[in-house]
């Protein structure tokens, strides 16, 4: 199974995301922001970083990169798409996910090993996790405060579309401690913390992040 990782100008975690795909047992394919080409991949990851220098708004310019035309069409067609950190911001700017990410309420950049509670294990990226499970993965962002209007938040909560919630501390002012959400179909997931940095004991706080990548690979094999 091939999982593509898009590199935008300013992406930082694209190589870590490709590495996570390989460790999970998949084939990682590098995708380029300027190409109208998904190279036949079965799933796409939009990685963390500061695409286009975070100019204008985080993810606002990346959203209009040539490759995003194909990513949006594929997501609408049911392809699994995961947005991590800046990738989550791009998914919100693309309207593939509702809401937006704004500057942390405490105004500091935050970098910590963050505990998350899994609240939806039915998405393409969480099927190998279980509801109520707690995972620890790194969080590092300056603009990770999830906001949406009251109706949208009520719909997300009511439909079980909150996938991950922060445990112990709310690190950035996100509404209802929301760390990650999914679309109606469950194929598109965005989260601020970084599962790709927690796939090997040597280089992260553990291997709790691996489950997202194995979930996608499994959902593709069983699809």
């Amino acid at each position, binding site marked *: 199974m091939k999982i593509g990782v898009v590199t935008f100008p300013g992406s930082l975690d694209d190589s870590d995301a490709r590495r996570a795909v390989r460790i999970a047992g998949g084939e990682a394919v590098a995708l380029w922001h300027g190409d109208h080409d998904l190279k036949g991949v079965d799933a796409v990851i939009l990685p963390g970083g500061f695409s286009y220098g975070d100019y*204008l*708004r985080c993810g*606002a*310019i990346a959203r*209009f990169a040539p490759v995003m035309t194909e990513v949006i069409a594929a997501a609408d067609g049911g392809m699994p798409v995961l947005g991590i950190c800046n990738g989550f911001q791009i998914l*919100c*700017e693309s309207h593939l996910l*509702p*809401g*937006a990410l*704004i*500057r*942390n*309420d*405490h*105004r500091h950049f935050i970098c910590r090993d963050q505990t998350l509670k899994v609240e939806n294990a039915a998405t393409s990226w969480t099927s190998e996790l279980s509801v109520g499970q707690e995972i620890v993965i790194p969080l590092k962002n300056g603009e990770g*405060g999830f*906001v*949406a*209007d009251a109706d949208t938040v009520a719909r997300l909560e009511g439909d079980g579309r909150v996938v991950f919630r922060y445990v112990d501390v709310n690190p950035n*002012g996100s509404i209802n401690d929301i760390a990650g959400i999914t679309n109606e179909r469950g194929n598109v997931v965005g989260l601020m913390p970084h599962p790709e940095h927690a796939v090997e004991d040597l280089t992260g706080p553990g291997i709790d992040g691996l489950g997202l990548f194995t979930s996608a690979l499994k959902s593709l094999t069983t699809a």
Partner: protein
Amino acid sequence: MPRVIVDVMPKPEILDPQGKAVHGALPRLGFNAVTDVRQGKRFELEVAAADEATLAEVHQLAGTLLSNPVIEDYTVRVDA
């Protein structure tokens, strides 16, 4: 060349940490009259003609790229 100004502001209900940071700095400098600060963005667009069609296009691009309607409001005006 006429110039069109697009002002983008965070919606009133959206927290504005940057404005808060600016506001927090004012009393330290001895400025005590300001009770709140909200920070936005101003775009100056040079256009060939500030006609109706152009302004309609500016409204469209302001709502598509310059602002995110989830968190921001924008206004468009022709610079006198």
